[in-house]
């Protein structure tokens, strides 16, 4: 056990003075993302589940509606976005809850880490995973499963990644309200399933009762599904797809900002 304290104290102030606050913030965000990814790397089964489960569900969907291929054509694209969203939502909310219960969150909040650095670090790490997940599910659905889309396929991919990011952002946000694992898991049926029912996948949004339509209009998942549906049916890119994507991206950004705001350095 060495007691090299002289260098200990002299290294402090020097190291603690970052040149630019923005750069320091970027360093902390990237370090957080790297740390989250390293944690996942130590847990290969979770990565496998994250990547494989949406694919298995899409294969199931294809063969459940084997007799009516038009159903897969209609629902395949929206579900290509929704399955990753659900998976990312679950994983993110549990991951942040773990950060809270392990005491590391409290420790980090006594350190020079901005709350947004932490939230963005998580979003970046899980966003990368969402990208990978979307790429695999996308390749499977448009390749072997033979999903037919009229619009540009690259845009379909963009929307799928956006959906994964939205799931991550919403997971980060709601985890602020979960004190236990039981609560965190319940947020999936409480927060995602109503959106799932109202997103237009089961009934077209136009034919819903007015009140339901209003609720559907303020739920981000509706726009994720709208974008996918438009890309399936329409050739070329309409401005509406851009609007839908903007709503999905905006909702994700809002959820991340709220996630950072609802983090409290001081607790009772």
């Amino acid at each position, binding site marked *: *056990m060495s007691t090299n304290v002289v260098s*200990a104290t002299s290294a*402090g102030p020097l*190291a*603690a003075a970052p040149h630019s606050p923005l750069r320091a913030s970027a360093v*902390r965000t990237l370090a957080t993302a790297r740390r989250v990814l390293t944690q996942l790397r130590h847990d290969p089964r979770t990565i496998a589940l994250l990547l494989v489960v949406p694919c298995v569900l899409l294969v199931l969907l294809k063969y459940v509606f084997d007799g009516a291929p038009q159903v897969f054509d209609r629902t395949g694209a929206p579900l290509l976005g929704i399955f990753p969203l659900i998976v990312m939502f679950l994983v993110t909310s549990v991951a942040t809850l773990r950060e809270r219960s*392990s005491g590391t969150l*409290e420790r980090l909040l006594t350190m*020079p880490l901005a709350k947004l650095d932490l939230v963005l670090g998580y979003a970046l790490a899980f966003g990368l995973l969402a990208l990978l997940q979307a790429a695999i599910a996308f390749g499977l659905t448009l390749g072997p499963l033979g999903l037919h889309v009229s619009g540009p396929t690259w845009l379909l991919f963009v929307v799928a990644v956006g959906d994964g990011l939205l799931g991550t952002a919403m997971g980060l946000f709601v985890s602020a309200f979960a004190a236990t694992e039981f609560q965190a898991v319940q947020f999936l049926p409480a927060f995602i399933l109503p959106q799932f029912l109202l997103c237009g996948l089961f009934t077209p949004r136009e034919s819903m009762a007015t009140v339901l339509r209003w609720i559907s209009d303020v739920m981000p998942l509706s726009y994720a599904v709208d974008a996918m549906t438009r890309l399936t049916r329409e050739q070329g890119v309409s401005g509406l797809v851009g609007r839908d994507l903007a709503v999905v991206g905006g909702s994700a950004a809002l959820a991340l900002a709220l996630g950072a705001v609802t983090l409290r350095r*001081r607790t009772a």
Partner: protein
Amino acid sequence: MINYSAGPPTAPGSAAAPALEVRDLRVVRGGRTVLDDLHVDIAPGTVTGLLGPSGCGKTTLMRSIVGVQKTDGGEVRVLGRPAGHPSLRHRVGYVTQAPSVYADLSVAENLQYFAAVLGAPRSAIARVVGQVGLEGRERDLVARLSGGQRARVSLAAALLGAPDLLVLDEPTVGLDPVLRHELWELFHSLADAGATLLISSHVMDEASRCQHLLLMREGRIIADDTPAALLARTGAREIEEAFLALVAGADQTAKTAAAEPVKGNR
């Protein structure tokens, strides 16, 4: 309390401004007053022990000092600034009672992350691993370490930024005597280099290793003195005995106070 500290207690031989000043601190949690009208001063470059039975409010006081506790009155100033001030986040190290490190990362991965957050140089990692005696365990997953080893990883993370104030909540629980001895030597060498340490414990035999002692009971400081002065005043041979004498004295005072008519109740 009036019996034991007349006026603001200042550490002997230290004219410098206190590293830590707590004034009239009050914390209420779940309707229960955990800290009541607390006063504490700690001189820089000292090792202060915070002793008292479990549940007496030690952790709440420490959380107030590092700025993560909601307080209900009073003031806490750390290194001349209000507790929790952003500029203090580089200068205050906090080790919670339960090791707060990532169990699913290796020792080195944990320290690399905390070093990046603190802006500490990479060389700091090897230094702190040496300081807590975990050489050779850098690649081990924290989940596979023993309880005592995990506690030391948590301590190492707090040492990374070379903080000016170290707040350690029961850092030696579950460690063998040799290791405990080595850690106390480390704490003193850190203080000699200018750092201020506040270390809680409910093991009274660790008290003699501190330069200054705060004895706490039911949310109040019942003694604030050097170990030698405490022994002299109570006529006890050991700190544990002194503590029991002080508790008996405090209970006596409380009874007398309760018997008197209430006046000036805020």
